[in-house]
């Protein structure tokens, strides 16, 4: 592999293309011993996917995710400062507890109280609505899998919502239940919302079918961009192609999807 000299006076025009050939150990030395900001930047960029991965696992819902990503990158910075490459241990293993530590602190201070109970409550309401809707539609009580599919929730989220609802029902058994005529208006409102959602699912089905015409790599890139919400440069780094290529591939895939689904949508 290429070995570069650790010259702290190197002109900053060297840029990331040059820098990206450097080995991780060199990058740590360059930053820790010589204050090479570019080296730190590159270490950050290389390890942001790890922070992202941890944030995604740690955030149970989408809401605190962005915040966790931010505090997680602070943890990463911290770990980059303190890591000692001469001990011969992988950086990732060293960094994970530090990054998680930052996320936990934040989550306990702000994230939990703010976001999580609300998300859980919203899910419970959605599940209740979906049970009624599916029951009315198919004439029998839905299964948990059907609910999860319908709502695009994890099965576990549905189970959690049902547990919460059951606990609520038990404690309020003596409370007056809503009467049939009283429930009329709100039920109709729910129906409207659900119908919209259903259309979304239908269009998903069409697109899903079209996706099978794309190559695995094209699907992967689409997924990274639109499901995982990564930037084009982040995708480029992870796949090992240039950002321009990512951009081209994305545009081509979207064009093909549009062609493939056009007729289907018109038929709907």
């Amino acid at each position, binding site marked *: 592999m290429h070995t570069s000299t650790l010259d702290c006076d190197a002109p900053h025009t060297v840029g990331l293309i040059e820098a990206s050939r450097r080995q991780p150990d060199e990058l740590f030395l360059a930053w820790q011993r010589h204050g090479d900001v570019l080296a730190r930047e590159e270490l950050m960029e290389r390890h942001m996917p790890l922070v992202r991965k941890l944030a995604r696992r740690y955030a149970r819902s989408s809401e605190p995710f962005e915040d966790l990503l931010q505090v997680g990158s602070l943890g990463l910075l911290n770990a980059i400062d303190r890591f000692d490459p001469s001990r011969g241990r*992988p950086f990732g*293993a060293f960094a*994970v507890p530090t990054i998680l530590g930052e996320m936990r602190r934040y*989550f306990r201070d702000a994230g*939990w109280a703010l976001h999580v*109970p609300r998300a859980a409550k919203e899910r419970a309401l959605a599940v209740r609505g979906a049970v009624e809707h599916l029951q009315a539609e198919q004439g029998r009580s839905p299964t948990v899998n059907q609910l999860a599919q319908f709502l695009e929730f994890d099965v*576990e989220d549905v*189970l959690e919502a*049902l547990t919460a609802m*059951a606990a609520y029902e038990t404690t309020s058994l003596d409370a007056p239940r809503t009467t049939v005529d009283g429930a009329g208006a709100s039920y109709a409102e729910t129906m409207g919302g659900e119908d919209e959602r259903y259309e979304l699912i239908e269009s998903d089905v069409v697109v899903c079918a079209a996706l099978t015409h794309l190559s695995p790599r094209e699907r992967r890139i689409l997924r990274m961009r639109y499901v995982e919400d990564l930037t084009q440069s982040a995708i480029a780094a992870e796949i090992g192609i240039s950002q321009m290529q990512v951009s081209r591939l994305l545009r081509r895939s979207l064009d093909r999807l549009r062609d493939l689904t056009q007729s289907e949508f018109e038929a709907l």
Partner: protein
Amino acid sequence: MSSARVRVELSNRAENVPMVRQVLGGFAAAAGIPQADLHDMSLALSEACNNASLHAYGGAEGPLEVELHTSPAAVFARVRDWGVGLTLPIDSTPEFPADVEGGLAGLGLPMILGLADSVRLSTPDGGGTAVEMVFPRGARDCGQLASPPGHTEPLGIVPGQLASTVALEMTPPGVAKEVLPRVLRGVASRAHFSVTRVEEVLRIAALPLTDAPHWAESGRVQARVVDDTGVLELSIGPMSAEDVLELETAARRLAPGFIGTVRSAPATDQLVLRLSRSA
């Protein structure tokens, strides 16, 4: 609750990791573990179980045991398998995953180390791997690993039924009240019971946990849930023969439509209910 305990034995297949989280959720509700703590414990426990699922039996299926118990200062968790074991210094407390040769060296162990207060990996008597984790309760720092609880006869999964069985031991009955419904809901959902049917199942399962029986002085509830292709079999005990009869009658009264299949096992101290998916 000064000391609550649950022990669950089930297959290491990946779909059972969510089941372990259901058990933990119920345990946390019974033991009064705050939601934020539960969140961290759930992640750590999942990582340990995922590891057992992927690596313990070289990709094959085998039993997995998870035990949770509380002391006033800490929550203790142990994930144990009887698989190929880790190549690592026995009873080590690894600083970094590079200390471990084996499956835990991915993201799993670093996460566990980042989430639990202390962690110990060991090869217990009988082989396999045990991952022990301690979580402080509230703000208190418990520091040390609590000593593992003494047990342990296996909970008795019938050979050939490993894939479809969740076996539980819970102390006191208050723990069973929270854990058992969640496990039943999980198993019944997996077996494609409708949500209405699941609630009926839960009402029936609640009978032994509310009225009779008077649980033995030990306060220990043993339960087994088997998914037998669309029929859910719940065994619960130990209880007296009178309690078995009384509860069976009560169950029939509660859901005459679909329990035609209640069957008690008078030879044992267990109430056995077979609950079908459809009428």
